[in-house]
C-alpha cells in the first residue's frame, strides 16, 4: 500500500519536473537562486562579519572599483563586494523566514475560513479582509518601529502584514476541494475537522502554496530592503542597510554609483529570480492556468 503511494508520488514529482523544465524563464530563475543561496551559505568559509565592521575599513573611502576592490568601497573604506556577499545572508534569511511565517498564518487562516461554516468562518474571513485592506508597508513600518528593529521583529513585521492574500487564495481552493464528493465520503465515515483539513484539504492546496511562497519570498525581500532603507532595521548588514548608508552619506551626489547600483542590482536579480521561478511553478501547478493555456 505504502509502496504504491510512494511510486505514485515519485511519478508525480517526475511529471512535475519535466513540465517545469519546459519553462525556460523558470529554469533561469532557479539557476540564479541556487547560485545566490549557495554563495550565501558558503560565505562564512571565506569571510566573517568583520567585513562589515566600520573599523576594518582600511582602504580609501568611497573609492571607485579597482583591482583591490572590484566593486569599490563605501564611506568607511569597506569593500562593497564583501559587504554585498555578507549582506546577502541577512536579506535571504529574512526573505525566506518572513515568507514562511506569512505562509503558515495564511494557510491556517485560509483553510479555517474555508472549512468552518457559519459565524466562525465569517469572523475569520472578516479578520482576513481587515488585514488585507491595511496598507502593508505602512503597518510593517509601525510594527518594526514599535517592536525594535531586530532580525526577528522585521520577520514578524513582514509576515504579519503579508499573509492575507495567501489566506484568500487558500480559502478559495479549500472551498473547491471541500465541494468534491470524497470529502462527503470521508465525513460519512466519521472524519473530524482535523482529519479533513490536514489529510484532504492541505495536501490539495500544498502545490499552490509552493508557488505562492516562492512569489512571497520575492516581495518579502523587497519589503525587507525597504524597511531597512527607511531606517527601522537595526544595523545588521543587508542590501537594504547598505543602500541606507549610501543615501545617508550622499553617494548619489558624490557620484559613487557603485555603492548605489550594485546592492540594488543584487536585490533586483534575486527578486526577479524568485518571481520567474514562482510564475513557472504557478503555471505548472495551478489547474486554472493550465486549462486556460490548453
Amino acid at each position, binding site marked *: 500500500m505504502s509502496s504504491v503511494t510512494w511510486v505514485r508520488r515519485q511519478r508525480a514529482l517526475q511529471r512535475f519536473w519535466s513540465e517545469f523544465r519546459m519553462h525556460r524563464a523558470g529554469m533561469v530563475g532557479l539557476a540564479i537562486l541556487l547560485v545566490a543561496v549557495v554563495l550565501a551559505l558558503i560565505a562564512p568559509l571565506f569571510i566573517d562579519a568583520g567585513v562589515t565592521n566600520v573599523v576594518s575599513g582600511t582602504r580609501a573611502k568611497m573609492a571607485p572599483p579597482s583591482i583591490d576592490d572590484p566593486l569599490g568601497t563605501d564611506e568607511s573604506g569597506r569593500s562593497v563586494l564583501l559587504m554585498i556577499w555578507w549582506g546577502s545572508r541577512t536579506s535571504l534569511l529574512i526573505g525566506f523566514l518572513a515568507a514562511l511565517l506569512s505562509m503558515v498564518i495564511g494557510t491556517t487562516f485560509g483553510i479555517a475560513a474555508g472549512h468552518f461554516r457559519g459565524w466562525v468562518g465569517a469572523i475569520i474571513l472578516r479578520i482576513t479582509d481587515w488585514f488585507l485592506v491595511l*496598507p502593508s508597508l505602512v503597518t510593517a513600518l509601525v510594527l518594526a518601529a514599535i517592536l525594535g528593529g531586530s532580525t526577528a521583529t522585521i520577520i514578524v513585521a513582514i509576515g504579519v502584514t503579508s499573509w492575507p492574500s495567501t489566506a484568500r487564495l487558500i480559502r478559495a481552493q479549500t472551498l473547491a476541494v471541500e*465541494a468534491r464528493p470524497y470529502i462527503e465520503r470521508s465525513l460519512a465515515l466519521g472524519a473530524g475537522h482535523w482529519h479533513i483539513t490536514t489529510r484532504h484539504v492541505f495536501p490539495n492546496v500544498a502545490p499552490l502554496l509552493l508557488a505562492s511562497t516562492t512569489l512571497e519570498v520575492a516581495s518579502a525581500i523587497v519589503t525587507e530592503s525597504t524597511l531597512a532603507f527607511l531606517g*527601522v532595521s537595526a544595523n545588521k548588514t543587508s542590501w537594504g542597510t547598505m543602500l541606507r548608508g*549610501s*543615501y545617508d552619506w550622499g553617494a548619489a551626489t558624490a557620484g559613487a554609483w557603485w555603492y548605489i547600483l550594485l546592492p540594488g542590482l543584487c536585490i533586483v536579480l534575486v527578486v526577479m529570480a524568485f518571481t520567474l521561478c514562482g510564475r513557472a511553478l504557478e503555471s505548472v501547478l495551478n489547474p486554472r492556468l493550465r486549462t486556460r493555456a490548453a
Partner: protein
Amino acid sequence: MTVTQPAVEALEESPARYGLLRYAAAKAGGALLSIAMVIVATFFLFRLLPGDPVRALAQGRNMTPEQLDLERARLGLDKSIPEQFVHFVKQTLQFDLGTSYEYKRPVIDLIGERIGSTLLLTGTALVMAVSLGIWQGARAGWKPGSRFDKFSTAISLVLWSVPTFWLGLLLLMVFAAGIGPVPGVFPTRGISSVDAPGGLGYVLDVAQHMVLPCLTMVAVVYAQYLLVMRSSVLDEVGQDYITTARAKGLRDDDIRRRHAVPNALLPTVTLVFMRIGFVVGGAVTVEAIFSWPGLGQLFYDAIRVPDFTLMQGTFLLITVSVIVMNTLADVVYHVLDPRVRSA
C-alpha cells in the same frame, strides 16, 4: 439539484437580493467596523511600546520628578488602561490626534498642512500610471504573444522586482546629481526652491521638483496596472461578442477600443482602488527619498525620531483613508457594472 460550495459562496456574496442602498449600507457598516478595529488595534499597539514616553520626551532636558508627573497627568498616562482607552477613543472621534513630541503642535494641524502636497504628487502619479498601464495593458492583452506583449510583460516584471526606493536613488543620482556627461537637471529635494518666483513661475518650479518623485511612483505602480489590464483584456478576447463584432466586419482597432476595452476597464479600475494601500506605501518611500513635504514624509520623520504620537496619528489617518477608498471603490463598482448586480 446539488449546490456546490463555490455556488453557495457566490450566492452569499452576490448582492442580487439587495437593493443598491442596502448594499451601500452593508458596505459602509463593514467599513465602520474596520475603522473601529483600526482604532482599537492602534491603541493597544502603541501601548506595547517599551519604555516611558514621558521619559523619552524629557530626554536632554532638565526636569524634576514633579514636572515629569505633571507631564504624565497631562498626557493621561497616570490613569488606568481602560480609562486611557476611553479617553483615546473619545479624542480620536473628535479628530484630536494628540500633540507631536517633536513639533510641539497638534498632529491634526501638521497633517492638514502636509496633505495637499501628498494629494498633488500621488494624484498626478496615479493618473499617469493608470492611463499608461491601461493603454499598454490593453494593447498587450489584445495580441498575446506579440512582440509588444512580450516587451510589456518583461518591462512590468523588471519594474515589479525593483524596490521603489532604489529606483528613486538611481533617478536622483542620474538626473538630479548628474553623472558623467549627464548634467543634473532636476532638484534633489523639496517641493519648491527658496527663491521661487510667484505666480506661473512658482507652478513651473513645483512641477520641476515633482518630475523625479512622480516618475519613480509611476514606474513602480504602473507595472501592476499593466498586468491586470492585460489579463482583463485577455479574458474578453475569446468572448462571443468579439466574434460577432468581427463578423460585422469592424476593424480590429475599433473592436478593441469600442468593445473589448470598455468591458475590461471596469475590473481594472476597481483593482486600482482596491490596491490603493500599495500606492500609499510607495508614497511614503518616495516622499522620504525626495524630501517631498507630504504626509508620507511626516510619517517617515515620526519613525526616524521616533515621535510616537505623530506616528500614531498619521498611521490612523492613512489606514482610515485607505479603508474609505476601498469601500467607495466597492460601491461604485456595484453601481457601474450591471454584471455584478445580476450575477
